[in-house]
C-alpha cells in the first residue's frame, strides 16, 4: 500500500505559488545534501543557512497555495504527495550538486534571478505574496552576494578551480532561460498586478551575471539553446530520485503523522 497522490486544482494563483515553492524546496533540498560534507566548516554552515532560507520560502508558499486552493491541502501534502509530473520547479533547481563549483554556479544563477524577482514582487497586489517577497528578497540578496564571491574566488583562484568553475557555468547555462518563461496562467496574474512580468528582469540578470563572470575571469557562455519543461512538470531524471528520498516515509506509511 502506498499513499495516494494529491489531486490539485491548479488555478493560476495556486500554480504560481507551487512553481516558486517547488523551486525553493528542490534547491533547498539540494543544498541540504551538502550538510556535513562541505569544503570548510564555515562553508558547511553557509550552505545549510541558504538551504534553510529556501525551505522557509517553500513552506510559506505552500501554505498560501493551500489557503488559496481551499481544499484542505497542507504544505506537507504538496511536498510529499505529488508525483514528479505534478512538480513545477525549474530544471535548474533539480540539477545535482556536482562539485562545489556546480553548486555555486546553480546558486548564483538562481539567486541573481530570485533577488530581482522577489524585489519586484514586494509590490504585488497580492498582500500575502508581497509579504513573502519582502522576506525572500533579503534572503536571496545574501545568497547572491555569497555565491558571487565564490564564483569570483573559484574563477580567479587556481588553474584547476578556473577550469571547474568555467565548466560549471557552461553546464548550468542552458537551464537559466526557463527562469524567464511565462505562460497564459502567469499573464493572467500579471494583468491583475499579482505577478510580475519576467521579461524586464532579463537585462538586470544578464548584467549581474556578466559583471561577476568578468571579475572572475570567466567567459559568458555563447550558447543560446535553453532547456525547458520543469514549469509544466516535464523534468529530467534527477527529480524522481529526489522525490524518492523526500517522500519515502510519507509514501511508505500512508496517513501516519510525524
Amino acid at each position, binding site marked *: 500500500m502506498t499513499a495516494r497522490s494529491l489531486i490539485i486544482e491548479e488555478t493560476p494563483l495556486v500554480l504560481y505559488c507551487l512553481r516558486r515553492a517547488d523551486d525553493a524546496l528542490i534547491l533547498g533540498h539540494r543544498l541540504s545534501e551538502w550538510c556535513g560534507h562541505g569544503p570548510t566548516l564555515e562553508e558547511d554552515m553557509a550552505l545549510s*543557512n541558504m538551504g534553510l532560507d529556501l525551505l522557509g520560502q517553500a513552506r510559506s508558499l505552500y501554505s498560501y497555495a493551500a489557503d488559496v486552493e481551499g481544499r484542505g491541502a497542507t504544505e506537507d501534502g504538496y511536498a510529499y504527495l505529488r508525483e514528479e509530473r505534478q512538480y513545477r520547479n525549474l530544471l535548474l533547481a533539480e540539477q545535482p550538486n556536482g562539485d562545489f563549483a556546480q553548486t555555486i554556479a546553480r546558486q548564483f544563477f538562481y539567486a541573481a534571478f530570485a533577488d530581482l524577482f522577489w524585489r519586484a514582487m514586494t509590490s504585488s497586489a497580492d498582500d500575502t505574496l508581497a509579504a513573502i517577497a519582502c522576506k525572500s528578497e533579503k534572503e536571496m540578496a545574501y545568497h547572491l552576494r555569497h555565491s558571487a*564571491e565564490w564564483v569570483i574566488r573559484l574563477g580567479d583562484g587556481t588553474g584547476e578551480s578556473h577550469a571547474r568553475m568555467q565548466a560549471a557555468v557552461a553546464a548550468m547555462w542552458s537551464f537559466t532561460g526557463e527562469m524567464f518563461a511565462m505562460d497564459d496562467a502567469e499573464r493572467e496574474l500579471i494583468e491583475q498586478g499579482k505577478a510580475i512580468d519576467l521579461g524586464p528582469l532579463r537585462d538586470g540578470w544578464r548584467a549581474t551575471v556578466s559583471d561577476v563572470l568578468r571579475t572572475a575571469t570567466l567567459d559568458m557562455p555563447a550558447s543560446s539553446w535553453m532547456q525547458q519543461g520543469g514549469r509544466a512538470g516535464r523534468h529530467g531524471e534527477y527529480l524522481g530520485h529526489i522525490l524518492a528520498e523526500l517522500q519515502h516515509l510519507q509514501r511508505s506509511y500512508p496517513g501516519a503523522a510525524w
Partner: protein
Amino acid sequence: MMENKMMPLWEVFIRSRNGLAHKHVGSLHATDSKMAVQAARDVYTRRGEGLSIWVVPSAAIVASDPSDKAMMFEPAESKVYRHPTFYEVPDEIGHM
C-alpha cells in the same frame, strides 16, 4: 601547514543591539576579509544575535603579557580614591 597559513584565523566581534559595544564571540577561518565577514554572519548570528560584525585577523591582535600582570594591573588596585564610595557625604544630602 601550508593550508593553515593561507586560511588564517579571524576574531569575530558582534554588536547585539545598537547602543552596545561589539563583543568578542569567537573565531573562524577565512582566506580574506569579505569571506570572514560572511562566515561570521553564517556562524555567529544564526539566532539573531547581531546587528553589526567586526572581524580582525587574530595575528593583528597585540595582547599584554600575562606575566606582566602584577606590574600592569596591581598598581591600580590601591587607588581607592578614584571610586565614589571613598568619599563620605552626609546622609541628608542623599544621592550624589
